């Protein structure tokens, strides 16, 4: 069902987890609200560009489900870093999202 109201960032994150076939590569997720924009931050295992683009491509499905909510999905790909943990790149007041 399409949601005509503005969705919460947690609702969007939950739906993203429902439809993401590649969610096994999600190591951690955070939610954050910047003004009107709901941000979902995801730190992934080292993944190739095709997997990354498949995940980004879910944005289209999310906008079909939540057409009245502005959001942004931000992937942090461990393949592109020598750091073992990229959580320092996530906004300080973002909330860790329970993926289970």
């Amino acid at each position, binding site marked *: 069902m399409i949601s005509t109201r503005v969705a919460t960032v947690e609702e969007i994150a939950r739906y993203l987890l429902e439809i993401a076939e590649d969610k096994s590569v999600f190591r951690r997720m955070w939610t954050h609200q*910047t*003004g*009107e*924009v709901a941000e979902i931050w995801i730190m992934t295992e080292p993944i190739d*560009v095709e997997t*990354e*683009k*498949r995940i*980004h*491509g879910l*944005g*289209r499905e*999310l*906008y079909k489900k939540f*057409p009245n909510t*502005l*959001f*942004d*999905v*931000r*992937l*942090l*790909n461990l393949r*592109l*870093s*020598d*750091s073992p943990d*990229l959580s320092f*790149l996530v906004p300080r007041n973002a909330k860790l999202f329970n993926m289970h």
Partner: protein
Amino acid sequence: MEETTREHLALAQRNQRFADRLRFADSNAEHSSLGQSPEILWSVVISFYSAVHYINAYLWKIDRFAPKTHAERTPRVSQDQELTTIAANYTVLSVWGFQARYDPRAHISADDAQQAIDELHAIAELVRRELGDS
């Protein structure tokens, strides 16, 4: 074509050429102590900012919309009927550019920088076609 649209396109194309030159400048690059070539990192960042101007050119032409922030621009890329076809390309550039700028241990290869240029090419092709500039 209107002046604002033309200016965004010109800047996008200039940045695209610069990103391409930096990518190939890497063979002579002095690598940082972390082993990451600054040319490669900045080639990815500039690829993203080239994409930003392609998107701005499109949004101005179609909607007279001039986004002031990434938060205003990014959702439009996913929602617009035409731009949605290159939304994944744009988002890859956006997040790679972010990691290149803010992660002191970013590790982006020459192949990644070439991939970023290829993603940008897809965006440029679509926008130029939609604007009748191809």
